[in-house]
Every structure is written in structure tokens, then in C-alpha cells.
């Protein structure tokens, strides 16, 4: 069972010190409100052109080499989403001003809301798919911060992290899917991908592309089996939930599916993936909604149900299905936001969200009640609300499906009936009837906090009575965008007595029955849930803990802090991996081309080998260092013999300084510890690794020197060193001119390493720890 969120007491008015609204909160509020209004008005002003199917576009270069442009394109679908995001944004910002009045982090919330709104607007307006992905991830990050707003609460932190991991993980899949989609269609512009139509379904990578993109959309829009994070995200404050649930965050996945339907949709894979995931999500989440006592959790589950329903309808590419999806999207945005804000008011005023403890709130909070009842009626799909039109369209769409119409009709009826039951619970158990057991007397909230729900609920009523208000201007252009063809759309309340109407009557009847037997029903659902073996939330927990213990186990094995242990690992991996490669791809060993060994070279090499032997068997550190110095100097001499003077000088200097430096340190350390018998085995093992590394290195060196070199680069440097860079010393010219950027990086590394050494040496370790 998903983690229950205990009904939270009134954390924002009493427990916080009433410091009044400080100026920073006022500034944040003004910025957020002004931006929301500006965007809303801007979108409104574009309605007439966009509904004539002329999109608003804006293009400018950003990262030309990667094909990433700041390409924005607002068509019918983007316009609808943009209006919902900015319009609901206005109301939520105003509401939050009242809700968080006395909260110490009020300004942070307003800034976060603004950032979140801008990310969402960017997401629905992007035409370049990389840009779309960037905004997608920005919404993930900002919603993480919003869900975890109450960061002193461990439950909020857990929920925020869960939302981040689930949607962020899906985001990674989405990125790969989008890039593959772009590669397959040869363009990074969404509008061009869509204009190309369903050709992509013939591509050999279509199943992979579809899977990855749907993973992104399903995680974001909380589709089964990734639905669990959304109800947990209820740890967020009510206005945040209202915003995330109604218009934004979770609709991002829906938006993506709507947007890509002309390109990816219309196939069997698309149909079954969306209808199965959407159907299971819708039914399961409406059952889960019925068993909750906490009103907010109940609403959260109905959001999951709504998302499932929309996904279900996006499975088909019939016009009526798209119309049903879009209309329900609008319906849902109106009533869901209103209801969440209402819950916020109830919570604030009464201190609880448990509907068993609440009742007859109409006596204390009449205006809030008006908003709540109107919104709930729209949710139940009662005429003349827009919800009724939405529900009729859903049934019409389901009946029109070519495949499995009755299964989908049954799913829709079941989900809607439970929705009716929940709406009735809201109306009759909380606001108009029921017994209150709370001790304090609730008060009506301020105008800032009731204006939002009332406006939204009224919008649901008015657009139901006058559906033409939204049909031609918003719904039709959006449907046209989804189907990528011009569509004629007509919305009306009364269709005559037909299939959908009969289904509606059945729905309301079942819903009412469920409402009266609510206790029995939720008992039955509880019993059912307990019998299920795996719940997604538990699976998430197991996966997360497993990853963490695996990571810490690995880290503890690898990062022991012992230098010799590190070297053992490094060289073992080197030997094993190179040997494997050599076995897999043998190097032709042709020794005829090797340079002759002169007596000088032989002498130097013998010296080096002798020094290496001394090093291996020496008992004192000083002797070891000197022997090591001899080996290094030998290498320098070899460089000199072969004409690499610069390298030789550098090697000699480094070798000298190394010996001096190490001697400075080591001379003050004790002798090697006596070799104990137990360490004998380790000595043999180390010897084996050392010899193996040497052998492998020799083979590589021989292999490299026997392979003909590509001299193009060398020839370029030889030809241009003096002419273009005015230097005869090619090595130096490469260092300071041709590849100066590399050198700059290396010098920075030298500087950083030196700083680190100085810092480490200067740290004084006291018995009680390094910080004192």
C-alpha cells in the first residue's frame, strides 16, 4: 500500500511566527503574478490567428553546431496548454499569497511557482526537441523543489525525491527516444517530424523509439506502473498540488503523447500500450481514491484516474477520441484545481482533511462551499456542467472505437461511476451534510483564497451551458493539432437520447449506489489491496535501497584508503582488460622492422633492470627511491638517444625533483615494516601482478611500434611549425600554439594538484579531528 500521508495539521498559520509579509515575498508575488498575467494576455491575443491554424513561431540560433535552436511554435495544442498553465497560474499565485501569508519561506514558494510556470510554458511551446527535453527536465527539477517545499518534513523529502527519481529516470529514457526519433526522421524540429506523418512507424527502430518516449510520458503523467509517485507528491502544500495536478507537471506527459500522436500514433503498438496502461491506471486509481479518508489523497488518486482516462483516449486516432481527450483535459483542469484549492481552505480552516471528521461546512464557509459544490458537480459529470459534455464525449469516443469498444466503455463507466461517488462524498459528507467532530469553529477564508476555486468552478458551469465559448477557439485548434489535420468540432449539452446518455444515467446510478455503500466498498477494496503481492511503491523502495546498498558495498570494497590496494586494482584491471583485447584482436608481431640495439642502449637497459631489481628487494625507502630515480633517468637517456631532447630534459628534471621531493618526505618515515610470514603470499601476488603488467606493456609497446603510423598530423606540424607559428622546436610549438588549449588544461591540473598537496600537508590532524 502506498505510504499514507497523515492528515497534516494547520502548519502554516499557527506554528509559524507571524512576521507579516515581508518585502521579498511581495516582490516575488508581484513578479510571479505579472508574468502569469502577461503570458495569459499574450496567449489570448493570439487566439484568432492560431484558431485560423496559423501558428506563432520564433526561431533563433542557440548551439548551431549541435543543431539546437531556440525554436518556439505555438499552435492550437500549445495555445490550449499555455492558457491553462498561465490562467490557472494567475489564480494559484493569488491563492498562495493568502495561503502562505505568514510562512517564512513565502518568497521562495512564489519564485518556485514562477520558475515552474515558465518551464511548463517553455515545454509546451518548444519546437526543437532538445529544447523540449531541457524544459521537460526543468519542470522535473522545479517540481521536485515544490513537492519538497516543506523540507523539514521527512515525508515531504521522501516524496520529492521519489518524484524526482521516477520522472527523472523517465526523462533519461525520453532523451534517448527523442534523439533516436530525430535521427530516424532527419530533423530536430517537432513541426517537421509531425508534418512527415506516420512514416516513422515503418522505421526499424520504431518499437524502441516508441518504448523510450512512452517511458518518459508514462512516468511524468503517472501511468501504471509508475503511478505511485503522484499520490505521494501530496506532501506538497495544497496550492502547489492544485497547480501540479490540474494544469501542469503531470499533464506534460499527456502533452507529449498528444503532440507526437500524428507521428508515432496509429499503430497497434501505440494503441495497446496506451489503452492498457491508461485503462489499468484509470480503474486502479479510482478504486484507490474510494478507499481514502484524506480528502487530498482522494483527489490525488482521481488525478491519476483522469490521466489514465486521457491516455486511454489518446490510444485511438479517431477525431472523437481526440476530442474527448482534449475536452476532458479542460474539464479536469477546471474542477481539479478548484477542488484542491478548496481542500486547502478546509485544511487551513478546520485543521483536518479527514472527511469522517468534517461535515456541514456550508454553515461556516459558504463561499468555499459554492466553489466546492460546483466543481464537484462538474467532476461527477452532471448537466449542465462542462464535465457532462466531457463524459458524454468519452462514451461517444469509446463506442466509436474499432477495437475492443466494450472493454473501453466498461473501463470508462467504472472510472466515472467512482468519480461520481467521490463527488457525492465531497458534496454530502463534507459541505452540505454529515456530522462534524472538530472542536474549533471554522471560519470562511479571505477573498484571495476563495476567488480561485469560485472562478474555476464557474468557468466549468458557464462553458457547459455555453460550450461555444471554448469549442471553436480552444478545443478545435487543439484537436486539429493532435490529428495534424483541420477538424470541425461541435460541443453541445444535448445530443438526444442515445448510447452515451444511457451510459451516463447508468454511471450516475452506480455512482450513487457506491456513495451509499462507501464504507463497505472501501473495506472491500482494502481487502483486495492487501492480497496483492507487489505494489509499485514497495518495488520502488526495494529498488532504491538495493541500489544504495550495492553502491555502498562496492565503494567500501574499492575505496579502502590503502594506496597499495588501489594500485593492485588498477594494474589488475589493466592486465585483464588488455589481455582480453589482445586475445580478441591479436597484434601481428613482425620483428624484422625493429631498430638494432646498440651497445649504449643495451648498457642503459641493463642498468635500469638492475635498479628495478634493487627496488624490488630493497629494505629501506631511501634506497627504493634512489633505485626508482635510476630507472627514470635511464628512460631519459633512452629518449635522448632517440632524439627526443625536450622529452628527455623534462623526464630528467621530473625524475630529479621527484627523488628530492620524496626523499624530503620519506627520510622522516620509519623503515619498511618487517615482512611477516603472513605477508609472504601478498608479496608473491604483487610480484605476479607486476610481472604481468610488465609483459602486457611490452606487448603493447611492440605492437604499437610494429604498426605503421599515420603520419598526417606529424607532417602537418613539420610543415607548419616554422611557417605559421614561427618556431623550429616542434614540440614546444605544439605545446604553446597548436595545442595550447590542452596545455592550458594541463597547467590548470598542475596548479590544482599543487594546491591540493599544499592544503593536505598543511592540515593539522589533532586527536579530536581535523576541524579543530
Amino acid at each position: 500500500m502506498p505510504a499514507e500521508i497523515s492528515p497534516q495539521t494547520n502548519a502554516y498559520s499557527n506554528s509559524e511566527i507571524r512576521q507579516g509579509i515581508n518585502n521579498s515575498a511581495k516582490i516575488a508575488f508581484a513578479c510571479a503574478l505579472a508574468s502569469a498575467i502577461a503570458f495569459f494576455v499574450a496567449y489570448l491575443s493570439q487566439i484568432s490567428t492560431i484558431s485560423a491554424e496559423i501558428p506563432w513561431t520564433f526561431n533563433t540560433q542557440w548551439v548551431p553546431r549541435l543543431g539546437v535552436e531556440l525554436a518556439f511554435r505555438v499552435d492550437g495544442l500549445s495555445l490550449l496548454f499555455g492558457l491553462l498553465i498561465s490562467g490557472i497560474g494567475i489564480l494559484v499565485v493569488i491563492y498562495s499569497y493568502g495561503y502562505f501569508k505568514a510562512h517564512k519561506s513565502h518568497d521562495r514558494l512564489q519564485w518556485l511557482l514562477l520558475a515552474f510556470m515558465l518551464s511548463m510554458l517553455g515545454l509546451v511551446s518548444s519546437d526543437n526537441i532538445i529544447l523540449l527535453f531541457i524544459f521537460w527536465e526543468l519542470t522535473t527539477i522545479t517540481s521536485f523543489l515544490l513537492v519538497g517545499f516543506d523540507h523539514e518534513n521527512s515525508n515531504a523529502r521522501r516524496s520529492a525525491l521519489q518524484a524526482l527519481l521516477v520522472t527523472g529516470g523517465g526523462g533519461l529514457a525520453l532523451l534517448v527516444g527523442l534523439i533516436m526519433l530525430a535521427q530516424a526522421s532527419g530533423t530536430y524540429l517537432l513541426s517537421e517530424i509531425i508534418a512527415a506523418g506516420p512514416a516513422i512507424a515503418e522505421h526499424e527502430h520504431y518499437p524502441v523509439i516508441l518504448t523510450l518516449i512512452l517511458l518518459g510520458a508514462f512516468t511524468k503523467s503517472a501511468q501504471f506502473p509508475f503511478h505511485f509517485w503522484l499520490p505521494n507528491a501530496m506532501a506538497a502544500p495544497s496550492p502547489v498540488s492544485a497547480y501540479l495536478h490540474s494544469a501542469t507537471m503531470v499533464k506534460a506527459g499527456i502533452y507529449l503523447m498528444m503532440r507526437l500522436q500524428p507521428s508515432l500514433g496509429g499503430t497497434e503498438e501505440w494503441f495497446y500500450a496506451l489503452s492498457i496502461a491508461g485503462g489499468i491506471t484509470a480503474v486502479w486509481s479510482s478504486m484507490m481514491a474510494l478507499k481514502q479518508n484524506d480528502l487530498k489523497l482522494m483527489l490525488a488518486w482521481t488525478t491519476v484516474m483522469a490521466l489514465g482516462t486521457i491516455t486511454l483516449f489518446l490510444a485511438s486516432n479517431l477525431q472523437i477520441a481526440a476530442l474527448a481527450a482534449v475536452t476532458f483535459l479542460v474539464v479536469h483542469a477546471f474542477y481539479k484545481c478548484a477542488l484542491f484549492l478548496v481542500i486547502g481552505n478546509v485544511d487551513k480552516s478546520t485543521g483536518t482533511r479527514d472527511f469522517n471528521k468534517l461535515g456541514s461546512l456550508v454553515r461556516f464557509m459558504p463561499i468555499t462551499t459554492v466553489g466546492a459544490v460546483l466543481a464537484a458537480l462538474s467532476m461527477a459529470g452532471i448537466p449542465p456542467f462542462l464535465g457532462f459534455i466531457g463524459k458524454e464525449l468519452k462514451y461517444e469516443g469509446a463506442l466509436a472505437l474499432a477495437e475492443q469498444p466494450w472493454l473501453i466503455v466498461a473501463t470508462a463507466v467504472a472510472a466515472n461511476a467512482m468519480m461520481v461517488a467521490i463527488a457525492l462524498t465531497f458534496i454530502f459528507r463534507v459541505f452540505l451534510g454529515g456530522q462534524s467532530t472538530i472542536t474549533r469553529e471554522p471560519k470562511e477564508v479571505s477573498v484571495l483564497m476563495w476567488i480561485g476555486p469560485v472562478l474555476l468552478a464557474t468557468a466549468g458551469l458557464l462553458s457547459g451551458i455555453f460550450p461555444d465559448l471554448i469549442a471553436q477557439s480552444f478545443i478545435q485548434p487543439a484537436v486539429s493539432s493532435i490529428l495534424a489535420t483541420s477538424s470541425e468540432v461541435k460541443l453541445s449539452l444535448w445530443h438526444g437520447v442515445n448510447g452515451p446518455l444511457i451510459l451516463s444515467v447508468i454511471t450516475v446510478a452506480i455512482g450513487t449506489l457506491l456513495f451509499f455503500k462507501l464504507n463497505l466498498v472501501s473495506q472491500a477494496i482494502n481487502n483486495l489491496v492487501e492480497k496483492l503481492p507487489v505494489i509499485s511503491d514497495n518495488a520502488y523502495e526495494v529498488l532504491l535501497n538495493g541500489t544504495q546498498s550495492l553502491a555502498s558495498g562496492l565503494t567500501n570494497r574499492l575505496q579502502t584508503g590503502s594506496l597499495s590496494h588501489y594500485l593492485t586494482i588498477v594494474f589488475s584491471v589493466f592486465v585483464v582488460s588488455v589481455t582480453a583485447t589482445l586475445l580478441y584482436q591479436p597484434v601481428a608481431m613482425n620483428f624484422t622492422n625493429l631498430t638494432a640495439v646498440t651497445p649504449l642502449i643495451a648498457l642503459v637497459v641493463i642498468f635500469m633492470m638492475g635498479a628495478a631489481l634493487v627496488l624490488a628487494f630493497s629494505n629501506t625507502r631511501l634506497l627504493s627511491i634512489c633505485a626508482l630515480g635510476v630507472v627514470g633517468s635511464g628512460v631519459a637517456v633512452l629518449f635522448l638517444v632517440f632524439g627526443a631532447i625536450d622529452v628527455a630534459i623534462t623526464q630528467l628534471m621530473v625524475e630529479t625533483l621527484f627523488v628530492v621531493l620524496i626523499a624530503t618526505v620519506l627520510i622522516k618515515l620509519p623503515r619498511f615494516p618487517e615482512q611477516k610470514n603472513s605477508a609472504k603470499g601478498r608479496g608473491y601476488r604483487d610480484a605476479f601482478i607486476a610481472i604481468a603488467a610488465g609483459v602486457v606493456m611490452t606487448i603493447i609497446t611492440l605492437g604499437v611500434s610494429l604498426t605503421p603510423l599515420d603520419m598526417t598530423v606529424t607532417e602537418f606540424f613539420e610543415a607548419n611549425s616554422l611557417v605559421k607559428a614561427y618556431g623550429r622546436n616542434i614540440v614546444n610549438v605544439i605545446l604553446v600554439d597548436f595545442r595550447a588549449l590542452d596545455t592550458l588544461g594541463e597547467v590548470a591540473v598542475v596548479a590544482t594538484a599543487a594546491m591540493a598537496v599544499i592544503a593536505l600537508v598543511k592540515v593539522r590532524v589533532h586527536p579530536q579531528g581535523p576541524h579543530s
Partner: protein
Amino acid sequence: MNSLIFSTISRLLVGLMLLFSVFLLWRGHNEPGGGFIGGLVAAAGIIVYGLAEGPAMMRKLLRVNPRTLVLIGLLTAMFAGILPLLQDNAFLTGMWMFIGATATDKGLALGTPLIFDIGVYLVVVGGVAGMVIALEEEL
């Protein structure tokens, strides 16, 4: 190390090595040498002096904190990169001027690569000397 001979020789050596290091730095573009090697030679000279006279005298010889030296070196190298940007060239493009150039002779060639190399030189001197001073002081 309290050896009069070493101490005397080291004072002589450090001057010679510093001089030699600048020589290496200067000739680097055409003959073996360069900022990195020059920096290592200079650091070796300073270390010899430090072994004889102790870390305090090393600091005195450097005059500035070795960490500051590293920072100045990095900034100098960056400066050599930024300079060409002012004339719409790519970062770190080599730019040259020829003082006293004639038809047959380039004259004295001075360019941003030399500035860059000086930066490298300073980073190496500051880094190595800094490490040795820290080790000498703390151990």
C-alpha cells in the same frame, strides 16, 4: 642541512639555475627548452637553496606566496588566450610582432605564445616550490 660548503654553493647555484631557466624559457620556441622545462629547472634551483637554507629562506627568495605565483601563472596563460579574442581571432591563437624586421630577417619575434609559456613557467615554479615548502615546513 648545516653544511657551510653546501650553503655557499647553493647560493651560487640558485642564481645560475634561475638564469639558465630563463634562458631555456626564451630559446624554447626554436631550440630544446620551453616554459615547462624552464619552470622545472628554476624550481630545482630554489629547492637546492631551500635544502641548504630552510623553508623560511625559500619564501624570502620567492618574495611572493607560491600559491600567488601559481595564480599569476594561470592568469598570464589565460591572458595570452584572451588577447587574440580582442582582434576576433579564436581563443589562444598565436599573435606575433616582429621588432626591427627587414626583408631578409624576421628581427626580434615576440608573440602571445611567449606570454603563454611564461604563464606555464610561473605555474610550474609556484606549484613545485609551494609543495616543497609546505613539506619542509610541516614535516
